[in-house]
Each structure stands twice: as structure tokens, then as C-alpha cells.
């Protein structure tokens, strides 16, 4: 059986990300699963156990400054060389900014097609993409070369399939062109112990109705009680209530959690673009006519400053 390469998305702080486990699960339907770890020294050793737990039988490790010290390009070179070497049946990459960028360079290097934001990949390589803000479902195929597909987080439930992977060290030789953009600093901004927005199974978002940065603690409190991530509408971000990396929507993150709780959000089409494939949607808004109620499975018409703290209190009582 041909190999399927899964380019691992992981970080020092967060470990192996859930989307990687989803990719490993999808990859098992396509061939023999090999995980490709690209990062700093020791990355493969750090992640090996988890990757094995979800079915990686081989780990290719491209590690060190040559890979990690520059923006994206050396990683694409490493994957391209590996593709030429092992002739895989497919390459799966996370649909994160960096994942897509690796996929883009890879496609150019190999003169190969690519499909982004897939939620499913069939055994024959046909990918299912959700497009136009969740308005349409598209089935598509790479028609030139092998399937290079980026997978959207929270597309499937990862299933373990324990294996004991062998680790193979890759010698990554970045070209001069790969080294043109240096990463001089990586800064983690405060986000506490909350799950990552795109991977969380519960997302609680606040909008302009939250009315101040300080008052976002109302949103954070209930998010923490539910074990969820915190998101924000663009109006909340633009007003400076919450940082941009937590923006949900057309020009922010796409989330697809089990539960999306929208607090003080009107439900503009561009906001829906990032959340309407959520399994269950719950809204709190004082305006009974707010469009968010058109797609909410459960809605409370009321002042968020009363409803949400009361809900938090009720959850605490039940715990």
C-alpha cells in the first residue's frame, strides 16, 4: 500500500494539534500513514507517542534551525523532496495559514493541483469542501498530480489506532531562496489554558453588545465554565474589545464546533460565514429581530449582562 504523508501541525506549547489527529484518521482510509514532523530540534521525539497512538507507522523528522528559522519555504522544500522520494498516494496538510502556505509552495514546486479547506477525503482522493460561508458543499478532485489536500480543523472525530512508528531523520537542505525570510522572534500572547479557537468543541463568542473590553469577562467566564474557547465578532475586534486572532467570520477564523454560543452578536452574513456549520447554535441578544435567531437552535431574548451571569451561576450550581 502506498504511503500517505500527513504534515504534522503541532506546537511546543499545545503539542500535537487536534487537526493532526483528524488528518491521521482520514489518512488511514487512503494508505499507509506517515507523519512528517517539521520543526525545531527534538520535535519528532516530543510528538512521536501521540502520532503513533493515531496510526502513524512512520515518522519523518526534519528538524533544526534550517527548517525552523525561516518562514515556511524550507518546510515546503522538505515535503517536496520527500514526495519525490516516496511517491505517496496523497499529502494531507492542516488548513491553517501556515499549512495552506506550505501546500501552495508544494503545488508550485511539483506543478501539482491542490485543494484547500476539505472536511472529508474519499478513498479515491475526492475532497469535500464547504464553500461560500457554508452555503454550498463542493466535491472536487486534483486532476494534475497527486492529491495535495488541506484539512479544516474540526471536520471529523479523531479515532485512535495504536501503532509503533519508526522514526526516519530527514536531511533538509534549504535553498538560498528558502532562506530569504527569517523568523527573528515568536511571541505567544496571553490566552491562558483555553482550547484553540478552530479546534474547540465549544466556542463562546462576544459581539459589540458586550460593550467593552472589560465586560468581555462575562463571555470568558461562561466559556471557561463550559471548557470552551472564546471568539469575537469583527465589531467587537474593531472596537478593541478583543484581539483580532479570535475573530470569527469571513475575514477571521472559521469554526465548526459542537456548540457555538453567540452573545451580543447580530448575526451578519460575514459573521455567519465563520460559524454556520457549527452543530448547535445558541444565541443571547436583546433584540428579538436579530438575524442570529434565524439560525439559532436555541435563543434567549434578553440583556446579556443579566442572562449570561445567571447562566454561569446556574452551571456552577450544577457542578
Amino acid at each position: 500500500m502506498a504511503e500517505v504523508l500527513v504534515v504534522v501541525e503541532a506546537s511546543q506549547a499545545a503539542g500535537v494539534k487536534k487537526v493532526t489527529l483528524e488528518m491521521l484518521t482520514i489518512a488511514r482510509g487512503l494508505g499507509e500513514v506517515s507523519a512528517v514532523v517539521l520543526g525545531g530540534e527534538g520535535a519528532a521525539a516530543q510528538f512521536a507517542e501521540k502520532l503513533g497512538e493515531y496510526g502513524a507507522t512512520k515518522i519523518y523528522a526534519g528538524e533544526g534551525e534550517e527548517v525552523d528559522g525561516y518562514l515556511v519555504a524550507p518546510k515546503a522544500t522538505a515535503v517536496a523532496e520527500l514526495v519525490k522520494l516516496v511517491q505517496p498516494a496523497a499529502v494531507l496538510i492542516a488548513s491553517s495559514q501556515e499549512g495552506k502556505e506550505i501546500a501552495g509552495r508544494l503545488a508550485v514546486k511539483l506543478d501539482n493541483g491542490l485543494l484547500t479547506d476539505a472536511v472529508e477525503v474519499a478513498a479515491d482522493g475526492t475532497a469535500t469542501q464547504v464553500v461560500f460561508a457554508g452555503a454550498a458543499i463542493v466535491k472536487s478532485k486534483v486532476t494534475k498530480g497527486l492529491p495535495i489536500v488541506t484539512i479544516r480543523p474540526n471536520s471529523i472525530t479523531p479515532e485512535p489506532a495504536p501503532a509503533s512508528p519508526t522514526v526516519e531523520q530527514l536531511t533538509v537542505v534549504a535553498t538560498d531562496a528558502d532562506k530569504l525570510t527569517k523568523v527573528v522572534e515568536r511571541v505567544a500572547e496571553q490566552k491562558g489554558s483555553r482550547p484553540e479557537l478552530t479546534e474547540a468543541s465549544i466556542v463562546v463568542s462576544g459581539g459589540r453588545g458586550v460593550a467593552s473590553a472589560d465586560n468581555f469577562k462575562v463571555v470568558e467566564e461562561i466559556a471557561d465554565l463550559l471548557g470552551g474557547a472564546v471568539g469575537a465578532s469583527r465589531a467587537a475586534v474593531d472596537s478593541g474589545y478583543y484581539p483580532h486572532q479570535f475573530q470569527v467570520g469571513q475575514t477571521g477564523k472559521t469554526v465548526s464546533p459542537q456548540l457555538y454560543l453567540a452573545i451580543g452578536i447580530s448575526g451578519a452574513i460575514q459573521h455567519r460565514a465563520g460559524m454556520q456549520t457549527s452543530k448547535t447554535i445558541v444565541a443571547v441578544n436583546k433584540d428579538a429581530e436579530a438575524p442570529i435567531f434565524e439560525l439559532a437552535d436555541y435563543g434567549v431574548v434578553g440583556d446579556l449582562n443579566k442572562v449570561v451571569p445567571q447562566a454561569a451561576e446556574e452551571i456552577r450550581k450544577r457542578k
Partner: protein
Amino acid sequence: MNIVVLVKQVPDSGAERTLSASDNTVERGSANNVINEMDEYAIEEALKIKEAHGGEVTVLTMGPERATESIRKALSMGPDKAVHVQDDALHGSCAVATSKVLATALGTLNADLIICGAESTDGRVQVMPHMIAERLGIAALTGARKLTVDGAQLTAERQTDEGYEVVTAATPAVVSVWDTINEPRYPSFKGIMAAKKKPVQTLSLADLGVAADEVGAAGATSAVVEFAKRPVRTAGTKVVDEGEGGVQLVQYLVTEKFV
């Protein structure tokens, strides 16, 4: 500094969008077409750099004839001129082919700096800047929320899920920007009048030396096999808070097993 801004015309994300039933490409005929919003931030950034460091700003668009409207709109913000790659054979181009055409056109423009949006609102493929950099063998600084230009040296804050990265490179380079980077200016009346007279050069595939079968539906590296509209979500239960709204909400979460 010679700056080229990439501007794409897209269907308005505020209206309903769909694919064409005849060939599974984006329905652009009926859609209200606008400048990809993120590209307005790219234009603004280019104009700010020109104002601070001198130089020229050129808009580059690949798109059908009606993309001219977006080019004029872009020019009304202040860029000096535009290049419009327009050819019927481009219809249905995939990202790989698009990057080939844009990179070839850029090859004739001698840019020190290429600025584009971080992603388009229609395809959202988010690959163009790195694909172009790969083809041209130049640096890419992508996902910038802040950009500093010091002579030929560029420093950007690249937004990440965890926070940000500081990345540096020398020109020539491609930079892609998020909407947190600046506040795009509104075209002035003077700007709108001036835009009508600014030069717009139209280039065909033949002008660029790109073969028609390398692009468009003929040269596409991927194909849509089928598409379907997702079922529209419907409204569920709605309660009005009369003092117990928070408790009712939690009761719902309990029935759905979230608590």
C-alpha cells in the same frame, strides 16, 4: 520604491453567492462584484509606503472585463496606474495557474515590493503570496498585521494562532496583509475624477507568453466534480428572558449534554 498591489475582484460577500450550474465556476455574472476587501488594506499600505519613501504604486488584476470597475475604484484611492490581465482563456483558473499568470506579469513590472491581501473572500485559498514568491524566487512575509520599511529592509509582525512572529527580509518581496494593519482611505471626489485618466494597460496571455492551455478550465490542476447547496438552517426555540433566561439557557445546554 516600485510597489505593485494585487487586487482581485470578488462577488460581494454580503450577498448570496453560488456556483454556476453550467461549469461549476463562481457565478460572477449575477453577483455584485467588489474589490476583495483585504486588498483595500494592501492598497492603503502601498500608498502609505509611497508617501513615506517615494516611488510608484501599480495595481495588478487578473480578471474578466468587468474587473475594470474594481481597477478604477482601486485607482481612485491613489495608485498611479494599473495592469489588467484579461483573456477569455483564463476563465476557471485554479490557484496554481493564477499564480503562474500573476508571477509572469510581475516579472515584467520590476517591483521592489508586491503587496496583496492575506486571502480573498471567495476562494479563501490563502496561497497566492507564497506561490508567487516561490515562482519569482523572492521573499514572502505573509499575514502581516504590521509592516516596517527601512530602506530595503522589511520587518513584519505575522499574526499566528498563538500570538505573532516577527519576520524580516530584504526587497524584492511579497507581503500579504490582514485588515488589522491600517484603515483604508475613502476615495475623494478628486481621486475618483483622476482615476478616470490614469493609465490602465491590458495584457492578454499572448502578451505574457503564457499558453492558453496552461490556464483556465483547460489547464486547471483541480476540478469541481459536483456541488450542492447546504440545507438552510432554521430557527429553533426562542424564549424571552423574564428573569429566568440564564437558567433556561442552561437547562437547554443540559438536555443537549453540553453541561
